């Protein structure tokens, strides 16, 4: 037998390519080569991972549990058909636009206070909408590719359809309000939701991969995530969208 290649040694180290085993034992030169590789790869195990504090598990649970609680509310209330979310979008946007009309005739001070409250309500509603959208996109990005056959994504598709309607309302309101950044993000999100809503309800592994790639290429999940957390942070003290 010829001497094994470096690639064969590497596979052997990881428990594959066991056909070279006898040769490695019999050939002194190859045994030395393999041991040199072993030393290097064993040393990699010393790659330092920062230690966590003793109550790390509790801290992770505190953070995750809090976010789960919030998500559970969508699950039990508005997550399924999202009709409630759509009704909420109509209500919020309607109140916001009606308020703008009334504001023109109202005394300046009173109008300013009211404007702040309405924008805050809208801010929170957009934050909720973004979180719901993030959840459906995450579902798609992480869906396991079907080994054979097709994966049923009709649930995600229906959800995207419902979100699309709220998204349009929020985007138009943001544009009317001169909030270019929010309008731009919602426009981008709308394109992704459109692709999902108008795509097939059952996808092959290749189609799922393509869908995933498109979501990733646009970086929309991260944009939504950043925006959502900014909205959340500023909802408590900001009055501008």
């Amino acid at each position, binding site marked *: 037998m010829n001497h094994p290649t*470096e*690639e064969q040694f*590497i*596979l052997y180290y*990881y428990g*594959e390519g066991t056909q070279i085993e006898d040769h490695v034992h019999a050939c002194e030169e190859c045994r030395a080569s393999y041991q*040199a*590789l072993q*030393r*290097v*790869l064993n*040393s*990699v*195990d*010393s*790659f*330092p*991972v*920062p*230690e*966590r*504090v*003793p109550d*790390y*598990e*509790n*801290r*992770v*649970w505190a*953070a*995750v*549990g809090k*976010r*789960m609680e919030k*998500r*559970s509310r969508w699950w039990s209330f508005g997550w399924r058909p999202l009709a409630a979310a759509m009704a909420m979008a109509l209500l919020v946007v309607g109140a916001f636009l009606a308020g703008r009309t009334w504001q023109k005739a109202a005394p300046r001070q009173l109008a300013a206070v009211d404007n702040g409250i309405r924008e805050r309500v809208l801010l929170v509603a957009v934050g909720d909408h973004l979180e719901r959208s993030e*959840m459906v996109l*995450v*579902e798609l*990005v*992480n*869906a*396991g*590719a079907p080994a054979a056959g097709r994966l049923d994504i009709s649930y995600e598709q229906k959800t995207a359809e419902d979100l699309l309607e709220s998204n349009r309302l929020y985007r138009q309101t943001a544009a009317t309000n001169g909030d270019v950044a929010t309008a731009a993000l919602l426009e981008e999100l709308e394109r992704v939701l459109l692709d999902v809503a108008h795509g097939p309800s059952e996808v092959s592994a290749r189609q799922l*991969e393509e869908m995933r790639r498109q979501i*990733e*290429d646009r*970086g929309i*999940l*991260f*944009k939504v*995530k*950043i925006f959502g*957390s*900014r909205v959340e942070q500023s909802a408590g003290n900001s009055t501008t969208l």
Partner: protein
Amino acid sequence: MEDSDSVAVARVKAGDGDAYRALVERHSRSVFRLAYRMTGNEQDAEDVVQETFLRAYRQLHRYEARASFGTWLYRIASNYSLDLMRSRARHPQVAAGLSAESGGDALGTVASEAPGPDRLLFGDEVQRKVESTLSELSQQERTAFVLRHFEGQSIEEIGSSLGLSGNATKHSIFRAVQKLRRALEPLVNSVGTT
């Protein structure tokens, strides 16, 4: 552990959200280790930990007990780490924003001051070299290598996560090992002879 994981998973699926706490507590450190090895960044790794458990919770209905819960969870963690690194490469401004949003340390000061057992056993110089060489690998090489070396995933599993063929996956691992070897061999040999 697998049995108790299955029990906890069954309870969560039956609507007992609190049962998820046991799973989070049991796996959070190992998810952090995987995430840190993949991203090489503590803040990103913390983000991966939280996001992994949230995603797993949301997708629990899709989990089938064919693989252990841990394996399934680490798959989610490695996929999210990959998403994060890809996003960083493709959208540096967005990724910078994400880091800023993490606010430094998402869980407060979670790093312990105490040195880990590896740090005590191995020379600092070797560890530093391993760290710097891993950081110089391409994202694909590093991911393939970490999943094979530390997580023991098969070539097929790694290929499926990375969207690569079996051969391309093997070559990513080979390249990573060759680079590590070039960087570490002189150092490791000198340690071995002193």
